[in-house]
């Protein structure tokens, strides 16, 4: 204990000590929590969650940090409070029995009170002091102290006493939350922000287009860095979750690992053989172009690799998707049973955009998937303006990349005008973009798929025909005809025609070969007869030659004989 005190004191001089709130996401925004030993003001309109917020601060304080807390309620009785938060899983009664929490209800009823002169709030001080000391509380909530103003009329006294109260809390060294209802021009009706100047948090519950969104903003945090945006928060069965929407840096880890898309012919469009892990892929196209099928193939591939996939469906129910995907030979039920695939279906209009983001965020943190599919993001536009959806996606991609989760979005493009808009906005966010276009020709509608972009990867520049069969999805090379690309039956016809041509061609080639053969045979026969002719001619020529020779021999002989006879030197 002594050591703890000493370190606390030493640190006090150097750094700003903070009390972690334990509220999901809030500590990230405040970079550690509320200022330790000081009061924090939480203000907002009625029903924005102030009481819940402060109660969770106390309950988490007990459960996670072993810091007892005191709740001074000016509005609700202890059992009412306990009842209101049982739905969030907070057992206030148990905490009270364990002497970790004290709830003190201060009832103020103007009709009962008569003011007869000067007074002070020493009673409240003693009550508070006793409650703190009796359980060694480190956290205090005053909800909401402004109710004092409704019961007591002497503002001068109250203001002086409030100032004293905050000093009293500081002296006690407790981290306090003061709640206050929003005033018309000031943050709180009674200007409490004047007294609590260390940390002020504004809660807001807005209804835009009949859809409500809860938001939180840190208006002031003296002596500390903090996120300055409006952060959406969600109240559900696990309490409050604040979404620290945009991280301040662009320093997310990257991976060179490649994951396949589940469609082999699509993977072939990339020399790398797929998408980078942790990247974001957008599949856009008009209605009925098979975006969901691509997304499901992607999810299916992830599950087949043994990875976990979380599928956010904003259009169809999980059962519907599972049934429909059987038609393209994808058995999703198998993955669901194994716990690899999980659907998260919700109607976009169920709650505001930010709430969706928080809910998605929560679901992802809970399931810890490797791959996430959002189908389709464009449905979200129905509940928010384009820029809101864009900013939501930025935050979403940001979060997913940080966790190395690969995400596939599908987006419906309606007409070219909206198309360009959406595309412009989303383009800069995603890493890869698959575009599916309708190609209408010869009374047919066919699908053409191309890769619009793929960051850091070479990719095919060709439009491929995207075909959905009962064996799955595949991409077929598009045929180029005289009128442009050919798809569907036109492509089939072209293919058939080419095949016929080939057969004919082969046939023609065969005929020519035979002709040559025949010609050769003919010529060869001719050569043979000429050869014989030549031989007989040669023989004829040779015969004369020999005859000549014989004749000359005989002549010579007879001439010799004649010569001998004439000379008479030989006996005949």
């Amino acid at each position, binding site marked *: 204990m002594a050591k703890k005190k000493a370190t606390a004191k030493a640190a006090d001089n150097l750094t700003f000590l903070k009390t972690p709130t334990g509220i999901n996401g809030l500590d990230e925004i405040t970079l550690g929590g509320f200022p330790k030993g000081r009061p924090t003001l939480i203000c907002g309109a009625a029903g924005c969650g102030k009481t819940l917020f402060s109660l969770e601060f106390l309950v988490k304080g007990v459960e996670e940090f072993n810091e007892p807390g005191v709740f001074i309620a000016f509005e609700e009785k202890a059992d009412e409070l306990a009842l209101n938060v049982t739905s969030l899983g907070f057992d206030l009664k148990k905490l009270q029995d364990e002497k970790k929490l004290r709830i*003190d209800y*201060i*009832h*103020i009823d103007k009709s*009962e*009170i*008569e*003011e*007869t*002169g*000067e*007074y*002070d*709030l*020493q*009673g*409240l001080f*003693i*009550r508070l*002091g*006793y409650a703190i000391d009796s359980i060694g509380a480190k956290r205090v909530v005053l909800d909401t102290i402004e109710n*004092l103003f409704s019961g*007591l009329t002497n503002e001068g006294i109250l203001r002086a006493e409030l100032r004293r109260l905050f000093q009293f809390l500081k002296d006690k060294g407790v981290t306090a939350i003061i709640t206050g209802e929003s005033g018309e021009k000031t943050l709180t009706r009674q200007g409490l922000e004047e007294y609590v100047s260390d940390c002020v948090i504004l809660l807001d519950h807005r209804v835009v287009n009949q859809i409500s969104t809860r938001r939180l903003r840190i208006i002031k945090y003296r002596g500390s860095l903090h996120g300055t945006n409006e952060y959406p928060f969600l109240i559900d069965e696990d309490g409050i979750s604040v979404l620290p929407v945009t991280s301040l840096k662009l320093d997310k880890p990257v991976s060179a690992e490649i994951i396949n898309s589940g469609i082999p012919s699509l993977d072939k469009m990339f020399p790398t053989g797929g998408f980078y892990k942790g990247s974001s892929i957008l599949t856009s196209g008009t209605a009925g172009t098979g975006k969901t099928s691509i997304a499901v193939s992607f999810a299916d591939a992830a599950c087949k690799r043994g990875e976990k996939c979380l599928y956010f469906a904003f259009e169809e129910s999980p059962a519907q998707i599972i049934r429909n995907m059987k038609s393209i030979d994808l058995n999703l039920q198998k993955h669901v049973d194994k716990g690899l695939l999980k659907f998260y279906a919700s109607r976009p209009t169920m709650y505001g955009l930010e709430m969706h983001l928080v809910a998605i965020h929560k679901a992802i943190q809970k399931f810890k998937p490797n791959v996430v599919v959002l189908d389709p993001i464009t449905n979200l536009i129905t509940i928010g303006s384009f820029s809101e959806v864009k900013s939501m996606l930025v935050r979403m991609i940001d979060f997913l990349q940080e966790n190395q989760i690969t995400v596939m979005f599908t987006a419906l493009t309606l007409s070219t005008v909206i198309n360009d808009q959406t595309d412009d906005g989303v383009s800069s966010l995603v890493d890869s973009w698959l575009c599916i276009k309708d190609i209408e020709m010869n009374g047919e509608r066919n699908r053409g798929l191309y890769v619009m972009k793929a960051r850091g990867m070479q990719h095919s520049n060709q439009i491929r025909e995207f075909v959905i069969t009962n064996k799955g999805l595949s991409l077929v090379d598009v045929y180029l005809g005289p009128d442009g690309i050919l798809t569907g039956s036109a492509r089939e016809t072209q293919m058939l025609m080419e095949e016929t041509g080939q057969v004919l061609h082969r046939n023609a080639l065969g005929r020519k070969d035979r002709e040559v053969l025949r010609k050769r045979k003919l010529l060869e026969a001719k050569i043979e007869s000429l050869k014989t002719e030549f031989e007989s001619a040669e023989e004829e020529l040779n015969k004369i030659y020999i005859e000549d020779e014989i004749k000359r021999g005989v002549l010579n002989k007879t001439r010799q004989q004649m010569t001998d006879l004439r000379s008479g030197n030989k006996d005949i």
Partner: protein
Amino acid sequence: MSTEGSSLQDWGIAADEKFSLRLFVAGASSISIRAISNLQSILDEHLKDRYELEIIDIHQQPLLVKEENIFAVPLLIKKLPSPIKRLVGDMSDKAKVLKGLGLE
């Protein structure tokens, strides 16, 4: 306001009804002392011998503070006669004190 007895009758309070009063003060601060003396003089003037006054220092009785739902002091609680009434302040506004006690 000639005699106390007739006045009480005038105010519609039974002459034998006793006032049960509790005054909570925080220590011997100037405001506490003022409240005690102001109250004493009012009571002595209007309710002589018809009241029981208990003066409690809340510093000594922190548990009572919660029980009696005390936040502003000095606080005078009129337990009897009913209705219960709570008077906050140093009792310097005599008219209000009388009104609070039902002695108007």
